[in-house]
């Protein structure tokens, strides 16, 4: 996630935030992209947590289990950092969406 989706999403959010007059539909698509990224990260983190718990149960018998559990913890932390960043960007997009809707409403009335 860190090396692929997040930088691309950050760039697209930046483009949306700096656009002169963003349109609602592309903005909502971008928000849904962010929601999908967040969902993916959370699902991956949950999977890592389950795997790590299984390894912790085996630590007494398997010398490699502790090392792998540590690696999974590190990956889980990276996913959490990415997730926090995606949620932060989503909040900004939601504010932009609210402003865009208001602008459209005022333009129509």
């Amino acid at each position: 996630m860190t090396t692929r989706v997040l930088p691309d999403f950050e760039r697209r959010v930046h483009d949306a935030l700096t656009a002169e007059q963003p349109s609602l539909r592309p903005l909502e698509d971008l928000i849904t992209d962010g929601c999908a990224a967040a969902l993916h990260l959370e699902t991956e983190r949950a999977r890592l947590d389950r795997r790590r718990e299984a390894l912790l149960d085996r630590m007494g018998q398997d010398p490699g289990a502790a090392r792998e559990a540590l690696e999974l913890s590190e990956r889980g932390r990276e996913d959490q950092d990415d997730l926090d960043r995606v949620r932060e960007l989503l909040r900004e997009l939601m504010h932009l969406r609210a402003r865009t809707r208001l602008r459209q409403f005022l333009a129509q009335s």
Partner: protein
Amino acid sequence: MSAAPAIRVLLVEDHELYRQGLDEMLRGEGFAVVGQAGRGADGVALALRARPDVVVMDLNLPGLPGAEATRRIVAEAPEVRVLVLTISTGSVELLDALLAGARGYLVKGAPLADLARGVRAVAAGELLLGRTVADEVLERVRRGSPGGARPPGIGDLSERERDVLRLMAAGRDNTEIAGELQVGLTTVKHHVSNVLEKLGVENRIQAAVAAVRDGLV
């Protein structure tokens, strides 16, 4: 002791990445995803064929909108519970879907645990309605009801009818209500009919919204 069967879920969402994310998340949480559709009409056809426990339905779909797809599913297969997906709660489309019979809504950006809990709750017969949205739905019902200068409300119901409404809002069907109140099925049907008439609403979901709005549940 055997495990409870997995809750069967159908996904209707045109955004492929999000749909795949939901699929992955739900499977990881132990749900059985029985199908996916990216268009409203396909979602209706699949729902009527597969009869899942829950349809997770996006609102903004190409072709047939989510609210209309919801109405068709609920009309043909009332046992199938529809849970709406929305970006935010302030949309006309969300109110349309709830009035069409959706059992509640989930906000797309909600944490995984909330999404999974929401699907489980609706599968168990609960309603997922925030107070503000419930108010908006009822306002729409009220504006749509002919001539009523005074808004219909819980105050018009007898004590027994309130008991019935409370159980309706908790997602109980008529047989379950009869069991809990220890009365006959015909009596329950009579009470339900009175509740709908006195509240000026057309169906159980709208009655449940009134119950939430007036603080009965």
